[in-house]
């Protein structure tokens, strides 16, 4: 039985559709650099795999992401012209966010095929483990980034989370199951 994960509602896909990949890359790059700075243990945990190129493919969004941990870089690309990469992980955005925020177990998502992997499996495993240990919170990362806009952005993300069912903040242990 596949996991009951929310798929991104059509309205949000449409909103995401015209998003230009260049500004998106700038925003993602800033968040990634911040995460690398505030969670140095992630790079240590990745070890030799930090230099790998990870293609993250949220299948319900119109673009793919290339993550290069060693360079603290994440860029957006059109799915029609994906960049070269060592490993690819694909699935609905909600599965990525659930895994990242500790709401779902990565292995369980792999077994159920909510997430599928190709290429350097060991590198993906290292990335998964490094992210899991870092206890990331995407909402906090975006909010911390935007200074005076922090509070409104946090509010907007909370609304988006309620509307879409996506896990956009870290699920603390106490509220699980």
């Amino acid at each position: 039985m596949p996991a009951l994960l929310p798929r991104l509602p059509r309205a949000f896909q449409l909103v995401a559709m015209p998003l230009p990949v260049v500004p998106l890359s700038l925003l993602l790059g800033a968040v990634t650099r911040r995460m690398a700075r505030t969670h140095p243990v992630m790079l240590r945990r990745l070890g030799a795999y930090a230099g790998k190129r990870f293609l993250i493919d949220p299948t319900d969004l119109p673009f793919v992401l290339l993550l290069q941990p060693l360079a603290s870089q994440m860029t957006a690309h059109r799915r029609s012209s994906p960049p070269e990469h060592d490993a690819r992980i694909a699935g609905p955005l909600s599965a990525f966010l659930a895994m990242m925020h500790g709401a779902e177990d990565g292995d369980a998502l792999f077994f159920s095929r909510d997430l599928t992997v190709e290429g350097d499996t060991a590198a993906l495993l290292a990335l998964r483990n490094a992210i899991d240990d870092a206890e990331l919170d995407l909402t906090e990362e975006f909010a911390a980034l935007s200074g005076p806009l922090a509070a409104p952005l946090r509010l907007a993300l909370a609304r988006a989370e309620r509307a879409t069912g996506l896990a956009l903040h870290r699920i603390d242990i106490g509220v699980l199951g």
Partner: protein
Amino acid sequence: MMELVCPAGTPAALRAAVDAGAHSVYCGFADETNARNFPGLNFSPDDMAQAVAYAHARGAKVLVAINTFPRAGAEPIWHRALSCAEQSGVDAVILADIGLLAHAAARHPKLRRHLSVQAAAANPDAINLYAEAFGVRRVVLPRVLTVEEISAINREVEVETEVFVFGGLCVMAEGRCSLSSYATGQSPNMNGVCSPAEHVAYSEEGHELAARLGGFTIHRTPKGAPAPYPTLCKGCFTSGPQTGHIFEDPVSLDATRLIPRLAKAGVSALKIEGRQRSRSYVAQVVRAFRAAVEAQAAGDPMPEGALARLTEGQAATTGAYAKRWR
């Protein structure tokens, strides 16, 4: 209450386990000295010291698995792991190798020693030998025994016994299997890995996803169907006219409902497999099993079915604990 021994592959998972009610957490150093030497996992010496502080402050114990078989000519790596564990103030080390046990007994006499499942001590003679020769205080029993056999063992040994109740299941006697190195060059005994991810390749072929390990096809699944990790002994193979899971189906152990019988059989501690799993998994499983051991202590019935989605291939077995498994 039976002691609940829980896995942690990362400091975050260790904190999750302790917060969720683990009595003990087992973990390993980030090198070939432990049998879950996977990319991105495990503890540096600093991580270990902090982990012990976190666990001890909350009344939980930390057990360190140094349970691979030291490589000839490289024993100092394993000896340093022992020293580091003792300096970190861990509550016990979990060892499998005779030479390392002898070294630990001689050089670290005050460091409590458990016998790893990798030593596959499957009868009272073996257990008593490890207890007498190396002062082992607890033995993790191999997953080849029935509940009746576990009970019989406990009548003949002085040391504590610990058994697996949840997670991935070895079909072979642990520590006595070289299937992985036959296919990939890397083995649990020597490298601390089984069916390593570096040697896994998935490929979409027609309407199927083929999973290969070291070039050997382990299984093919229709597009969209659940695809278990290609662990060698859980693969689908052909022998003569038959095709199927010749060694073991892709199932995972869940012995929740056997907990009362295991308690009666004299088992001291229950172990959860899964140092490679996420902190979310650890938290959910530990919470469910803490409720189960509390129910057992109170004489209440075992809670059921909370964990099905977390198991591999999403089917569960009681494994060798039931005799018909053989």
